[in-house]
């Protein structure tokens, strides 16, 4: 398997109008894959506990906010290669998603969001009967 050469696992987020407290926001890296039944979104949110994920769907927009508990006071840093901060990202969801059935789980800092398609857009196998 190839070696990972890029050090970063997240990117600093652009300024948000909504930020009400200081601190840095990061854009989590995501994979989105579409299968017959659903769109699945995988977002990397290291340091976020499942109960600290705030996932909202409103007016066709899926908003992800992961809170990272500020770390203990580290006086004697010897090396700092990354910063800690909350994760924020928003996605426009097409109408073909059944918003009422969106579900999500968070394990080991990986958030998985299931976005099921509405019944009418799912591919359907049509049985062909002999005469």
């Amino acid at each position, binding site marked *: *398997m190839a070696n990972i050469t890029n050090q970063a696992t997240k990117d600093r987020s652009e300024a948000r109008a909504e930020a009400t407290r200081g601190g840095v926001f990061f854009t989590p890296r995501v994979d989105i894959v579409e299968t017959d039944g659903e769109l699945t979104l995988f977002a990397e949110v290291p340091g976020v506990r499942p109960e600290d994920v705030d996932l909202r769907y409103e007016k066709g927009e899926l908003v992800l906010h992961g809170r990272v508990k500020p770390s203990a006071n580290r006086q*004697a840093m*010897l090396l700092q290669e990354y910063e800690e901060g909350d994760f924020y990202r928003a996605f426009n969801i097409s109408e073909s998603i059944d918003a009422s059935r969106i579900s999500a789980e968070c394990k080991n800092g990986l958030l998985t969001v299931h976005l099921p398609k509405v019944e009418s857009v799912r591919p359907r196998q049509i049985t062909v009967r002999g005469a």
Partner: protein
Amino acid sequence: MRSSRWQAFNPVWNQLQQFQDEMNRLFDRWGNGNAFNAASGFPALNVWEDGEEVHVEAELPGQDLKDVEIYVSGGNQLTIKGERKPNLPEKGVWHRQERVFGSFNRSLTLPFPVDADKVDARLDNGVLHIQLTKHESARPRKIPVKAD
């Protein structure tokens, strides 16, 4: 073998370090690893000391602890290696692919020897936390002063 240069932590130094890392990235792009090849590589590390302990943290979201190996060798050499395996649906259409997978190997020279028998590692919500204890010889020693 990548090694890190250690300096007292302060904001100015940190900025210099960031600038240096930028330069390294620039040179690395031309395939010209040079003498400035200080701390870089995956995963990014945060290291701090707290009395007799040294803490190393790395963000490894979605990682299984069984796919991570940690070694302490030569007294002060810490190596973290492993593999990031994709756990994705086999078939489907990709809309975005931003996460990285593959193997990684990161070595770090600590500024003091550590006790290889006292290494504790855990994965907490995708953050790897390694706790090391400074070796006896690196600890401050109180010298009793005798009065006549």
